[in-house]
Structures are given as C-alpha cells and as structure tokens.
C-alpha cells in the first residue's frame, strides 16, 4: 500500500478499463449508424433512419461519458508517469498530439450536427455527418493503438545519450506492424460490441412485444453484423495478433499459455490452472501441436516456454495473464457459436419467435465487453515488467515526486466519481430504452 508504483498502476488500469467501456461501443455504433443511414439512403425507407436516430441517442450519452473519462487518461501521462513521459514524450506525444488535431476536432465538430442536426441537414448531409463521426472515432482509435503499439513493440526510435528516446523514422513509428494488427483486431472487436448491444435491444423489444418493426430490424442487423465481426475478430485479426505476440514477445505468449518448458509440437491449453510455483499446468486439457501451428504456421515449430527466459523478464502476474487470455479466447468462441446459431434461425425465419434464443441474445451483450477488457488485460499484463517492451521497465516510469498517498487519494476520488457516473449513465440509458425509437 505504501508503494507508489502499485497505486499508479492501479489508477491507470482502473481508469483506462472503465473509460474503454464507452469508446468500444461508440466506435462500433458509429460504424453501424453509418450502415443504417446508408441503407436508409439507398432504400428510402424511414425505418432505417428511425433506427439510426435511436442509436445516435445512445451514442451521444456514451460519447459524453467517453470524453469525460478519457481526459484523465491523457493527464496521467504527465502526472503519474512523468519519467516515462519525459523519456518517450518525443515519440508518443506525436500520436497523442495527432489524435487531438485530426480526430478530436473532427469528432467534436460533427457530433452536434449528427445528434441535433437531422432537421436542418438534408438526408445526405446527415449521412455525411455520421461518416465524419465514424472517421473521427476510428482515427482516434488508431492513434491510441499506435501509441500502445510503441510500448509493445518499439520501432523508429533511438536512445539519445541522455537516456531519452528520440524519433528517427516517423513512418516506421506510425505504421508499426504491431499497430496495424492490433488496430484491425481492436476496431473489429468494437463492432462486435456494437452488434451485440444492437441485437440485445432488438431481442428485448421482441420479448416485450414492443416496437415490432424496429425490434426486428435491430435483431437482424445485430445478428448479421455480430456473426460477421465475431468471426473476423478471431480470424484473421485475432490470429494475426497471436502471431505478432509470438514473433515480438515470445515470453508473453509463453505466459499467456502457461507454458513453462520449450519444445516442438506445442499443445494449445484449453482448460487448466497454471501452477507457477511448480512451473506446470494443473489438470490440463490440451490440443496437441495446435499452439505451434497457431503461433508459427507449422505443427512442428518450437514454441519457447518461460524457462527459456531469465526470470526477471517474466510477466509478474502469470496467472492473471493466463486467465485473461483464456477468458477472451473462450468468450470469442462462444460468441461466434451464439451468433452463428442466431443467424441460422434468422435465415430460417424463426428467430423472432424463438424465445430461448431471444433471451440468450438479450443477456449476451456483456460478453464482448468482458472479452475486450480481458484482451486489453492480456496486452497490458503481457507487456510487464516493461513499460516500453525491452526498453523501459515499469518501475522506472513513474513520477519521482508523487507519493503513494496522493495517488491513493486520487484513485479513490475516481472510484467515487465513476460510481456516480455509472448510476447516471444507466439511468439515462434505461430511460432511452423505455422511450424506444423516436419517429420523425
């Protein structure tokens, strides 16, 4: 408790996790709103615009909470992680600065037009506002992912004599292969979140026998998009992400899988508990040689275990990393299965009347939130003990002058604010759900 590093890490982890509950939905919804608006323009049917209008309201509330919970993250670089900022600001400041210049200005300028401008703008103009917002929010996502990618796999820099990192290639940094892979995976995951929420609302209204036309439309959109993007999040993007980890952070892969010994024909652990003290997996259920194939493309590849690496480079919390990864991958599989089944019923025109499936879809919307949170936990715990992988250790990055007590105080402050914010958020979303879609 007296260790400032503990509080700095807790604070960033807590505030970033909470924050990301909102942008993952707004980024996904931004895309789905564009799809709704485009279909409305093409068919000229009012029901698409009605659906978009409802989701724009939900978007607006989520966006507001996303903005205010995002501000503290930007500040924490300077307040809590001063040494990290001082050393790497010349590099990560680029993407964080670009996010403000290219993404936030775009989003903030067109948000009002999207939410309140439908009457003043032509249908085409309103569609363009939706596209601008989608571009802005996905651009913002890129700059953040590129910042994180530098911490996972630093490229395009050199270490100056005074220990600071200096940019040597802007494009190498911006087009970091890790960033491209992680971005595709992250954005597609956000559409999964959006689709599950849209499907859940459609299922809820269907079960309540409310707003029949809109309920059907949302159910269809959520299911079709949910299936497509649940598959895409696993393959090819999740697979690509796994190969990036295998290539650039082999030690992280070993810890994610709880693999202690090296060797060829590595098995993929489906179930089992990592036992770090005895360096083995308890009660494992494994698919032989599959991990080798997933990581390197052949069944015979050698996959290094943790014992091949010095212990001071092991991620500190192997159990948490292992479980986070398995929860993400397990839920990902479950989500494909659920959406596959729902899509099958939709195709057979039985989804509207299949109550067990409607219940499942209604209750399944937390799955993508949990999977996304677990996925980021894998990325961030997997990077430990490094703040910038291989370059700067986490325990060298914190602010030298800030005490544990100060950070504990502000962390508790955030806990309080977030509780209040959550209650307000749920209250407002609940009202919108009860109101239902708004006819023009």
């Amino acid at each position, binding site marked *: 408790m007296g260790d400032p590093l503990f509080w700095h890490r807790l604070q960033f982890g807590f505030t970033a996790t909470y924050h990301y509950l909102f942008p993952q939905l707004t980024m996904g919804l931004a895309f789905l709103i564009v799809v709704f608006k485009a279909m409305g323009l093409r068919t000229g049917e009012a029901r698409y615009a009605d659906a978009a209008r409802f989701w724009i309201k939900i978007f607006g509330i989520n966006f507001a909470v996303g*903005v205010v919970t995002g501000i503290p993250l930007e500040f924490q670089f300077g307040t809590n992680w001063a040494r990290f900022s001082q050393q790497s*600001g010349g590099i990560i400041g680029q993407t964080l600065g670009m996010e403000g210049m290219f993404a936030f200005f775009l989003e*903030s300028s067109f948000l009002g037009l999207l939410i*309140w401008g439908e009457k003043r703008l032509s249908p085409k103009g309103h569609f363009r506002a939706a596209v601008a917002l989608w571009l802005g929010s996905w651009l913002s996502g890129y700059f953040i992912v590129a910042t994180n990618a530098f911490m996972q796999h630093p490229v395009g820099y050199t270490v100056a004599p005074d220990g600071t990192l200096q940019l040597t290639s802007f494009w190498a940094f911006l087009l970091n292969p890790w960033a491209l892979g992680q971005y595709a995976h992250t954005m597609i995951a956000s559409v999964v979140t959006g689709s599950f929420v849209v499907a859940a609302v459609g299922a809820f209204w269907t079960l309540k026998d409310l707003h029949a036309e809109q309920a059907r439309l949302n159910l269809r959109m959520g299911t079709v998009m949910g299936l497509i993007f649940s598959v895409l999040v696993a393959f090819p993007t999740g697979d690509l992400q796994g190969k990036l980890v295998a290539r650039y952070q082999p030690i992280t892969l070993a810890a994610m899988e709880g693999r202690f010994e090296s060797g060829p024909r590595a098995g993929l652990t489906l179930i089992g508990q990592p036992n770090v003290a005895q360096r083995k997996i308890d009660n494992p259920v494994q698919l032989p040689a599959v991990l080798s194939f997933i990581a390197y493309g052949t069944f015979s590849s050698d996959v290094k275990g943790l014992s091949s690496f010095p212990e001071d480079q092991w991620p500190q919390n192997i159990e948490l990393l292992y479980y986070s990864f398995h929860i993400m991958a397990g839920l990902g599989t479950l989500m494909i299965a659920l959406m596959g089944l729902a899509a099958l019923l939709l195709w057979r025109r039985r989804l509207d009347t299949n109550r067990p499936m409607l219940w499942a879809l209604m209750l399944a919307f937390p799955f993508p939130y949990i999977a996304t949170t677990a996925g980021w936990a894998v990325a961030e715990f997997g990077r430990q003990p490094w703040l910038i992988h291989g370059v700067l250790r986490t325990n060298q990055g914190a602010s030298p002058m800030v005490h544990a007590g100060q950070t504990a105080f502000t962390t508790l402050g955030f806990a309080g604010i977030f509780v209040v914010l959550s209650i307000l958020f749920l209250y407002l979303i609940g*009202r919108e759900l009860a109101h239902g879609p708004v006819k023009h």
Partner: protein
Amino acid sequence: MEQLWFWMVAVMFSIYVVMDGFDFGAGILHLVVAKTNEERREVLGAIGPFWDGNEVWLLAAGGSLFLAFPKVLASGFSGFYLAMWVLVWCLMLRGISIEFRSHVQDGLWRHFWDTTFAMASVLLPVLFGAALGNVLRGVPLDASGYFSVPLWTTFRLGPEPGVLDWYTVLIGVFTLVTVTAHGALFLAWKTEGAVHERSRALAAPLWGLVLFLWVVATASTRIVNPAIFLGLARSPLAWAFTALFVVGLGLAFLGLRRQWFLLAFLGSGAFILGILAASAASLYPVMLKSTLDPAFDLTALNASVGHHGLRSGLVWWLLGFPLAIGYAGFLFRFHRGKVKAAAEGEGY
C-alpha cells in the same frame, strides 16, 4: 526549430483560453443572466455546438507540449499533482453537466446540473489562472528537473511556495473576471431578449473590473518576476502582442459602446490572445522557471526533443492546424445568427 515549437505551443494554449474562455464565461454567468429554463437552454444552445471542440484545444495544446517539450509536461504535471486532479475533476463534472442536463425534463434535476455547471465554470478559470501565476512566479525546480508544490503554504512568496499564494490567486481572479467579461460579450452577441439585455448590462462593469485587475496584476508581476519586463523590453514580438492586446481591449470597449457585439467579442478574444502571447514572449526561452537557481530553469532549448521529432511534428501540425481552424469556422458559420432555445427533447 525549438523556438518555432515554443510559439506553436504558446499559441495553442492561448487559443484554448480564448475558445474555452467564452464558454467558461457563459457558464459562470448563466445563473445570473438566464433565469428561466428556456433562457438557460438558450445559453446552453449558444455554447453547446462549440464547448467540446473548444476543450479539444487543451488536449491538442497539451499534445504539442508533450511531443516537443516532454520534460516540461512531465515536471509540471507531476509537480502540481493534486491541483491537476482537481482541475480534471472540474472538467469532467462540467462536461457531464452540459451533456446530461437536458435529457430529463425535471426542475430539480436541471437545477442540480445548472449549479454544478456554474461552480465548475468558476473554479476552472481560477485554477488555470493560478497555473499561469505559477509559471510566471516560478516553482522550486531543482537539479533533477522535478519539483513538488503543496496546494498552499503561507500564501506568501518565498522559498517554499504553494500552488496558491496571494499572487497566483490574484492571477486566478484576473483570469476569472476576464473570461466572465469575454463570455458576457459572447452571450450579448449570440442571444436576444432578456439574456442579451442582462449580458450586455453586465459586460460594461465587468470590463471596467478587467482593466483595474490588469493594472494590479501587471504591477504585482513586476514585484514577483521583474525579469519578465526585461524580456518584454528585449522582444519585438512581445511589443507586437502587447499592441494586439491593447487594441483588443480598445475594440472591446468600442464595440460595447456602439453595440457592435461581434466586434467587442473579437476584441476581447484578441485581448486574451495578446496578453498570453506577450507573456510567453517575455518569458522566452524559459518555460518553467526555477525559484532556486536560474540554472535549473526548463527552457525551450534544454527541454526539447531531437530535430527529427520536431520536424515530423511540424509537418502534420501544419496540416492539422488549418483543419482545426476550418472546423471551428464551419461551426460558427453553420450556427450563425442569434441562437434560439431548441424544442424540449432536442438540443442542449
């Protein structure tokens, strides 16, 4: 290159104060100038399309500071640790109060958010002003390049300053009154009817107070950091900015007298931009002054990153800056004319 970035950062922070300043001012005044729900929604409707974009200037300015002078950001943000978080919480509460208020048609709900909005709008300029006061006064930076100041000590100048002392509070109050006066002109320009009349009536005495506090603040700065005036005498740029803010002040008064509220508002914007930029020019190259030893000052030269980073940043900055100005111009054009309170369930 370092000098150029110093100016880019200084100009972006100054634009931030001009832009968010008018919606702070509107927030400070709205309980006074807008009495009914319709009037309050008129005020919110006037700033609603802009406030979020205005706040982005803070993030963009912070991002520029981060990429060009990470040492200054690291040292300053961690040194003012608790004050920074009070500021962030105010920003959060303020954003939420604007966005959530009109979702529920209930008198008590709305009154709560109106009051939250007003309180956060008062506190923020005081804090930002106090931050500027700290930069002008200096902080106990040592050889490590870091410092830590408590929220307050004895409220006197000395070897152990706090974030708040008589000087920084004075600059905070000066900032508060200035953005209030700035916001009054914005509301006078964008609204009509009762809100317009009340804003206009308040603007004149507020600007009188600005003038008085400006004299007091300038005289006090002369005591706290005499070097600034040497810097001012040395820098032709500082003379130009001084001319800008004097002309801006003149235009604000002229516009008020002749009822040309757009002119008055632009004048007050020029006043804020000019006075901040003139201060930056007088401080140059110092970005964070040490009260212990001038050798520990963080300057544009010793705190900047390497040239490749600055050059790359410059390229995209030159693309992004006109875009940002363009969006703001587009929004002002789209929402030109006097604002009307939106129907219930629509707009802010």
